[in-house]
Structures are given as C-alpha cells and as structure tokens.
C-alpha cells in the first residue's frame, strides 16, 4: 500500500503545482494560497492516515483527490482547456456554426491541459490506493491487474471521452433561436455623457435611423440604449446588466475603448457584437466584428493622395493619443515603403497649448505638407496657431471632420470614410438637425444594425450569419471580410474642408 500512497501523493502534489501555475493567470499571487491548500491538506491527511489508520483522514484525503479530479481536472482542465484547444478549434475550422474558441496565453492553456492529464494520474493512483487499502484491511495480498483490466479501463475511458466530446460539440454550436415574442432587442453600447457624448449620441441616431428605415420586417426591433458612462468598470456593469436583465440579442457599439470591454461579455453571452472600432484586434471573428477603415487603409489612401499632389516631404505634428498614434504608426510605415521622407516629427501631450516653437521647427524642415492630428481642444489650438503663421498646406486623417472650428482648416485635405451615398448624410441631417454627422462612424453604425436585422429576418443565428458575410454593400462603400476574420475592411476616401464644410474629393 505504501507504494500506491507515495505515488498517489506524488501525483496530487505535481497536479497541485500545475493547478497553481494555471490559476496564476486569473488569480495572480492568490493562486499561491490555493496551491498551498492543495499541497498541505492532502499531505497532512495522508500522513495522519498512515500513522493512525483514521477513516476520517482517509476519507478527507479521497475528497481532496475528488476535488482535484472533478473540479480542476475535468471542469477546468478538460472542459475549459483541452476540449476548446483541440475540439473547439477543429469544429470552428469545419463549420462557421461553431465559434473559434477564445483561448488564453499559451502557458495558461498548456497548464490547463497538463492539469487534466495530472488529474488522470490522481484518479488512477487514488483508485489503486483504495484497492490496496481494502486488500490490506482484509488481510489479502494486493490484487494485481489482470490482462483484461487495462483493456476495460481503456475502453471505458474512450467511451467516457466520446460522450464528453459529443456533449461539448453539442453545447459549442451556435443555433438559431427565434426571438421571444417576436421582438429582437439590440443593445446600443455608446457613451451618452462626458467627452464621448457627441459621438455616442450621433451613433445612436444613426442606429435609430436604420431602424426607422426598416419596412415590412418579420420581427420587431427594439433598441436598448446602454449608457456606459465614462469609466470602464461602470461600462462593464451597464453592459452586463443589458445582457442579463434586458436580455439583448445582439450589440452594436462604437469606440475601441468600450469595444474592448464589451468583447468578453458578448463572447460569454454568445451574442454578436459589432463595433465601429479602429483597433482591429478587438474583432475576433467569433462574436465580435469591427467595421471601419483600418489605420493601414487610411495610410495607403493618404500616401496615394500625397503622391498625386506631388508632395515630397512631410512634417508630422500629432497628439500622443492611442488612436492617433495608430494612424501615425501606419502612416510612417507606408511613407517608408514608398520612400517619402518625413522631415519633422513631434508628438505632443494633451497639456500643450503653445505650439509656436514646434511650428517654427517644422517650418524650418521645409515640408510640403503638415500632417496634423489631435483631439479637441488641442486640434483647434494647433489649427489657430498654424493659421496665424499663415500655414495652409495641412493634411490629416479624420480629425478635420470633427473639429469645432472648420474655418481654421479651410483647404486641408484628409482621409475619412468613403461616403458614396451622400444622400445618407443628407437624410440624417434632415432627420436629426443639430446632430453632428460623424462620417467615420455613422455609415458603419447603420450597416452594423442592418446586418443583424438581415440575420434575424433570414432565420439564422446572427453570430453565424455575420461570420459568413464575405462582402456587404455598405453605406460607405463595399465592405469585405476574409473567411474567419473579425474585421470588415473598407477603403477610405479623400475629403477636403471647403467653405467650412467637409467635401468628398475622390469619387469612385
């Protein structure tokens, strides 16, 4: 019996270490406490049992084994790591009705798989220990495995594994479920207050316009506005409430900052989430899909226009802000690719109000164009000071379309969404006078809503339907999506500020 007791304890200790490593990801250093419990308690119980033959100690030891095998080995190791890694990815590669699983970092998943393997050793040696203990109590020789026993064991394990794998495949598949009472609830996740309020409100208006444009639909479509406030914790709570209490069937949202918060919640609820987000990594192709020209696409279009205009040298004056940084990074890469030199680069903090010295330095580098991109109020301050210096040769990405003072940027050209259906903007402005039309968001919000509506009208699971879309005739030009991708791609266009208003320059 001593041999099996030693081997049983060894398998428990090794598995406890693997469980600890695995839990370092979700629990941090608190996982060490869990590991200590899993090491100390079984060791103490087995030591107690070997010294006293206490039944309570033996039962306690076996309960710890059971916890490790079921709680960690089967539920965490098998169901949440091993099956998603091997079976989940395989099913997703075969059919789009299975989502590509959301997997953690490599060490997390490998430790999960090892936890499952370790728990099999715990199970096996626990079983041998029980038998040895029973034989010892009966005064019999320890039973040796017969030739048939391993075969039976392997056959039983195979059957059990097949049943579990079948159950996993069944639960993993996304199926069509008709909306309750014929009403489809679509959550609109945008901030309605704070600095994002202008964009949030106009995003909501675009979705409302999309809904009012619906004619003769099979189902009713109800918008559930989720005011996500300003901070991420508040946003998470509000989105979770919309999912669990309001039971939204799908989510349309905008702004990467909040898209990142929504993504795991939509995945957990298994509802589609479309996001007008420039951070392409948010779109996973499972439940979350981004829809906006990527920074790379903006950069390609911008450089083409620069070349068309005979620009040879560029100065960059940009704010240190994530989405702007993304544009600048893509622009630098594209400029380097085509061999256009950057004569001056300056990234400024949002506390800067006096740009005169950097304007002077940029001017001294003799650029053909000043690339400026910033948020309000820095954008207007920079524009004012460039204007005072009589600098008119400016260009940008998106920013001039959202400035509070377009007159400062008269003649500035920039890339933004290709609003081929200009009537869309006119209808919007007529329907919602006084609401700013954000060219880089509104068409995509409108299209995202319609994609979800199409899915329900066709009686298809909306997440599966969006996964299957390869091309879509969007309000801002054709959208394309590669198989398995979570990003709808589209080409931006060149705009110019003319008479204080954005005007589409390049018509395709």
């Amino acid at each position, binding site marked *: 019996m001593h041999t099996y007791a030693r081997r049983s304890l060894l398998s428990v200790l090794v598995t406890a270490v693997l469980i600890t490593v695995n839990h370092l990801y979700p629990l941090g250093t608190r996982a060490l406490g869990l590991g200590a419990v899993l090491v100390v308690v079984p060791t103490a119980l087995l030591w107690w049992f070997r010294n006293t033959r206490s039944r309570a100690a033996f039962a306690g030891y076996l309960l710890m084994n059971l916890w490790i095998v079921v709680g960690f080995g089967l539920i965490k190791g098998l169901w949440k790591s091993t099956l998603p*890694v091997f079976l989940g990815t395989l099913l997703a590669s075969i059919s789009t009705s299975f989502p590509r699983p959301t997997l953690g970092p490599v060490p997390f998943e*490998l430790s999960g798989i090892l936890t499952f*393997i370790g728990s099999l050793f715990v199970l096996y040696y626990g079983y041998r220990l029980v038998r040895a203990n029973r034989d010892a109590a009966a005064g019999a020789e320890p039973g040796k495995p017969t030739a048939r026993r391993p075969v039976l064991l392997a056959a039983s394990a195979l059957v059990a594994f097949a049943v579990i794998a079948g159950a996993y495949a069944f639960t993993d598949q996304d199926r069509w479920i008709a909306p309750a009472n014929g009403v489809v609830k679509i959550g609109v996740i945008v901030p309605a207050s704070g600095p994002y309020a202008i964009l949030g409100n106009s995003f909501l208006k675009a979705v409302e316009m999309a809904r009012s444009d619906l004619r003769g639909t099979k189902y009713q479509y109800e918008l559930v506005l989720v005011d996500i406030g300003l901070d991420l914790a508040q946003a998470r709570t509000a989105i979770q409430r919309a999912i669990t209490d309001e039971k939204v069937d799908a989510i349309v949202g905008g702004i990467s*900052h909040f898209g990142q918060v929504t993504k795991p919640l939509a995945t957990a609820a298994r509802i589609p989430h479309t996001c007008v987000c420039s951070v392409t990594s948010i779109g996973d192709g499972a439940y979350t899909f981004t829809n906006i020209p990527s*920074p790379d696409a903006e950069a390609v279009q911008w450089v083409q226009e620069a070349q068309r205009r005979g620009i040879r040298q560029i100065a960059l004056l940009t704010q240190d802000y994530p989405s702007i940084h993304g544009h600048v990074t893509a622009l630098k890469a594209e400029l380097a690719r085509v061999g256009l030199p950057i004569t001056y680069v300056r990234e400024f903090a949002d506390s800067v109000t006096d740009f005169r010295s950097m304007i002077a330095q940029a001017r001294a580098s003799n650029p053909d164009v000043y690339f400026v991109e910033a948020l309000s109020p820095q954008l207007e301050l920079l524009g004012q000071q460039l204007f005072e210096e009589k600098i008119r040769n400016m260009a940008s990405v998106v920013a001039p379309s959202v400035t509070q003072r377009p007159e400062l940027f008269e003649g500035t050209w920039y890339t933004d969404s290709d609003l081929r259906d200009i009537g869309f903007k006119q209808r919007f402005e007529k329907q919602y006078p006084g609401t700013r039309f954000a060219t880089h968001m509104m068409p995509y919000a409108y299209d995202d809503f319609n994609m979800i509506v199409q899915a329900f009208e066709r009686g298809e699971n909306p997440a599966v339907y969006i996964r299957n879309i390869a091309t879509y005739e969007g309000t801002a030009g054709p959208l394309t999506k590669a198989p398995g991708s*979570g990003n709808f791609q589209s080409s931006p266009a060149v705009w110019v500020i003319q008479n204080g208003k954005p005007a589409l320059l390049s018509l395709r």
Partner: protein
Amino acid sequence: MNKRTHTPTILALLIAAVLAWAYVIVAQNNAAMGGAVETPAGLLH
C-alpha cells in the same frame, strides 16, 4: 524486454506530443483571433 519498463517513456512522449500540438494550435488561434495588437483605445474611432 519487459513491457512495463517502456510505459513511462511512452507516456512521457505522448504527453510531450500533445503539448507540442496544443502549443501550435493555441499560437495559431490567438494570432488569427486578434492579429497584431495595435492601439488600445480611441476617441476618434
């Protein structure tokens, strides 16, 4: 040759193969799901 003496070696090789396979799958899946991580947030978008 004793059959039992090979069991630990076979098990170890099997586990190593499973882990190597899992490593490839997880790395490929994560690359396909997120791509290169770009910027974390944006007001403009």
